[in-house]
């Protein structure tokens, strides 16, 4: 198992290199520079600024310098926020995204799994139809639509919850963002689990377990649910990606100071280092999430072990 993880981490290195190179090349190919503004800078000042950020060096040198920094875990200074480094901004924003993302994922599993199981066990009944309808609705309505509607209902009309703001992570402030972010995943999880559980329920081993008189509960929990969860685990890798990038919209709606906000602001202000740093961080998170999903899959199913 350890060598499997090691091998996967080795494969991750070229992947991350591609992401870094792509981001770097894109930003340097773009017309205009980070310090192009309406007021014309005195040439000496401009030269001084460019020297400070090493923009006067040839592009390959800049690339190597940046790469060297990333290897040491240093994403460089922010062009926009003079006093902070990109690391500072990430350290400030990431905990917020992780809190909201993990809570949303947990909530999605908590609702989606029972919904999928009920839909599969009560196939073609009202329960199944209701669960499937909820699932389809969740997939079709994006978070930036549900979030303002939730705000309209619970914050503006009913006045139960605040309409936005981080509020130092108070539970009241977390409820709406987490619910809005989790809804599409409730839908995906329910759909996926219904399909895979239906497949498993028709297998010979489930029939055998029932025929020898095992209680239905035990059959379901021990023999049916475990293999049915495999596709779900595989889905959790890409789903984590969705939670991370989806939080860009959620942060905009609720005015939360997460890394998605820094990213969008950075893109608008040509803050190259912030954009590159956040993109690379997203890439690392995606690679790690996929690796984790593979490991859990291997733990659940011996056939998946290398």
């Amino acid at each position, binding site marked *: 198992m350890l060598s499997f993880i090691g091998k996967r981490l080795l494969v991750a290195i070229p992947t991350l290199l591609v992401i870094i190179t792509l981001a770097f090349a894109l930003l340097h190919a773009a017309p205009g520079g980070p310090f192009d503004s309406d007021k014309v800078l005195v040439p000496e000042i401009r030269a001084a600024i460019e020297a400070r950020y090493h923009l006067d060096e040839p592009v390959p040198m800049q690339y190597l310098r940046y790469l060297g920094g990333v290897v040491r875990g240093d994403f460089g200074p922010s062009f926009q926020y003079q006093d902070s480094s990109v690391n500072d901004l990430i350290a400030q924003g990431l905990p917020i995204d992780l809190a909201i993302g993990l809570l949303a994922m947990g909530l999605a599993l908590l609702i989606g799994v029972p919904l999928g199981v009920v839909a599969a066990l009560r196939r073609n009944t009202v329960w199944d139809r209701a669960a499937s309808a909820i699932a389809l609705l969740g997939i079709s309505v994006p978070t930036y639509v549900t979030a303002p509607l939730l705000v309209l209902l619970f914050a503006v009309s009913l006045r139960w919850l605040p309409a936005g703001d981080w509020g130092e992570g108070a539970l009241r402030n977390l409820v709406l963002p987490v619910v809005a972010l989790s809804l599409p995943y409730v839908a995906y999880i329910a759909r996926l689990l*219904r*399909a895979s559980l239906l497949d498993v329920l028709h297998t010979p081993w489930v029939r055998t377990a029932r025929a020898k008189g095992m209680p239905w509960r035990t059959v379901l929990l021990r023999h049916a649910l475990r293999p049915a969860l495999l596709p779900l685990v595989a889905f959790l890798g890409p789903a984590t990606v969705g939670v991370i990038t989806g939080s860009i919209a959620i942060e905009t709606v609720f005015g939360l100071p997460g890394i998605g906000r820094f990213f969008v602001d950075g*893109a608008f202000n040509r803050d190259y280092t912030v954009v590159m740093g956040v993109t690379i961080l997203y890439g690392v998170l995606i690679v790690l999430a996929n690796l984790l999903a593979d490991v859990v899959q291997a733990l659940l199913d011996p056939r998946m072990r290398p």
Partner: protein
Amino acid sequence: MNSAPLPRWSLLLLLTIVVLAVVVPWISPWNYYTPSWDELDLEPTFANGHWLGTDDLGRDLLVRLMWGCRISLLVAVAASLTSLFIGVLWGATAGYAGGRVDAWLMRTVDVLYAVPFIPFVIVLTVLFGRNIVLLFVAIGAVSWLDTARIVRGQTLALRQREFITAARVGGMSAAQIVRRHVLPNLAGIVAVYLTLTIPTVILVEAFLGYLGLGAQAPLTSLGVMIADGAAQLRSRPRLLICPALLLALLVLCCNRVGDALRDRFDPASGGGA
């Protein structure tokens, strides 16, 4: 073969939306861009002809809604076709060539799967100007991975068939065989995945529009209208609810039609979900 019935209502509703999006701006006495200072914030009535009322600049909401729908659909179809073109070319080449070419092409796809896709589209649209053509090329250029995988799988299966061997024995070149025999046989499954790509792209375009990176004012798209509406949530909830409902309906219908088609024509999906 699953003989699940096509969702007739979804298909009908989808056609209705498309027809309305084409026809309404054409026959309506109002346009999407001229502000009217005497008609700010009118409530919906049939009497004055503004069936959904007007927005904060006095522009007819129904006409703007249908224009937004046009742009969203246009971007979605164009981007899906772009992604289709790249994906089919990539997948068919990998599947038919096999061996080392296949290994390298598909390894590239694996690597690209780990690239955070939305951030890259955001960077592309911010840095290279916000025009609509670029928008759909950017979305299309990063969303072809699934198509490439599916096309490769199907091509691998097709390659084993007798008629391909017959064509090879008959002296056709690889390029000819791919064009004349492989691609036509992929048409069915490719069409199915096209219908499933369209709703995804509609959502991506709406997301970019929401961030202010999509269609630029006075032109509008469903995402742009949702963003505008969300900003005026307290005073004019109508401006959010109308485009939000339309977007949801549009994507819902596309998804239902796409799912049904996939259950019918895709041998790989057992038609479970």
